[in-house]
């Protein structure tokens, strides 16, 4: 039973309740957001869990930021993703570009999915960093343009324009079957 609308008088407890309430809705979305960046599902799930633990530890710093808590969670996700990619880069392990999808029972299906994954990933790489972030937060994070603007420090109109330009670019690179 969610009682987040109650009158608990401690600000911290209110934030804790709010954070717990966001868990069910945003855990999957954050995992997908991270997956788009790193291309590894297992690590993406771990990082998504880490986002909520880190948010809990940092709740005091949230109070001064003035953005919706879900937007703040994606900022944490972004920072953890960057940290992860830096570590991977130092270890010189599997580069993101060469991540191979799990092989299914049907090798033809698996091959087709790998080709499609490569095609979309290649198209995403052609976007600017900001365009890619807008697409990721809108398509996978499920955030509104206003919330994305809060994270990126942009107005709603600028986000909408960037979004349209990004999708047109993706369409141009990927082609569309109509």
């Amino acid at each position: 039973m969610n009682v987040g609308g109650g009158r608990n008088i401690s600000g911290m407890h209110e934030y804790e309740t709010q954070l717990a309430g966001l868990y069910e809705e945003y855990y999957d979305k954050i995992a997908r957001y991270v997956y788009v960046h790193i291309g590894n599902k297992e690590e993406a799930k771990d990082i998504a869990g880490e986002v909520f633990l880190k948010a809990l530890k940092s709740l005091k710093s949230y109070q001064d930021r003035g953005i919706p808590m879900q937007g703040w969670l994606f900022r944490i996700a972004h920072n953890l993703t960057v940290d992860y990619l830096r570590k991977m880069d130092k270890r010189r392990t599997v580069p993101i570009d060469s991540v191979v999808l799990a092989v299914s029972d049907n090798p033809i299906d698996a091959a087709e999915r790998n080709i499609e994954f490569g095609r979309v990933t290649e198209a995403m790489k052609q976007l600017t960093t900001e365009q890619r972030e807008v697409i990721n937060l809108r398509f996978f994070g499920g955030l509104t343009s206003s919330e994305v603007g809060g994270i990126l420090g942009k107005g709603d109109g600028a986000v909408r324009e960037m979004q349209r330009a990004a999708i047109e670019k993706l369409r141009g690179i990927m082609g569309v079957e109509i």
Partner: protein
Amino acid sequence: MTDDFDRILDECIDRINRGANLADCLSDYPAYAEKLKPLLQSMHDVRKTYAFTPSADTKRQARQRFHAALDRQGRMPTPSLFLRVIRQPAVWATIAALVLAVISVLVIQPVLNPLTVVPSPEGNFAFLISDEPNDIGDFESLNVTISRVVLQGAGSLKRLEFTPETETIDLTQLQGEQSREIWRGNVPAGQYSHVYIYVSEGTGKLASTGQIVDVKLPSSKLHISMLFEVTDDTVTSFTFDITVVATGNNGKYILKPQIGESGARQEQEPLE
């Protein structure tokens, strides 16, 4: 014109994010459908390529880690400046006797002699139980007997306890938004900081096998640390959310408090 199109595209993406399909959006904007369709199709392709949903088991494990951290944080608030000062050995040695005297008066005596409050249908405080679904689906029934509830007042407010009017509840009937009031009565107005429920027995019947299992507690009581206020002129309803979780693959279960789903709220209707 471009701005209008950007807004329509944005609205369609919002609608698709909320579960609508592409065709619905196109039919609402026939003048833009030709331009919208390839862009929304690209969105669909990108989402499909990266689509994955973490398994329920993975999500449950992550949720348990999160709620364990939430519980720990509730029990261990950041030390105040005062606490950091008194942790200095020299300071401690000087004030130890005074602290012990204060503890004796303010803590030990109230603990030993909690104020017992009696139920009243016209009371200003209602206590409810709910159940956050974790592993409750494993059970056909899960009866939990609560022998007493203790509220710890903040500041000078005395610790008080009451015996639930309904002592045994079936948690399978209280999942999600469901809750059940187990006590209502008058409690002194003021701030309260901790709620304890003492569980004397937990017995469940497994849905898969019909086996009867004892459900344990990590200790004899469930505890939530949460500051809330009770007033004289409104009814404060406190919902204590309990969840049952499997401890592994050994067929054992424990009860845990769910701070994220628990809390107090004031009813809108003032008391006569």
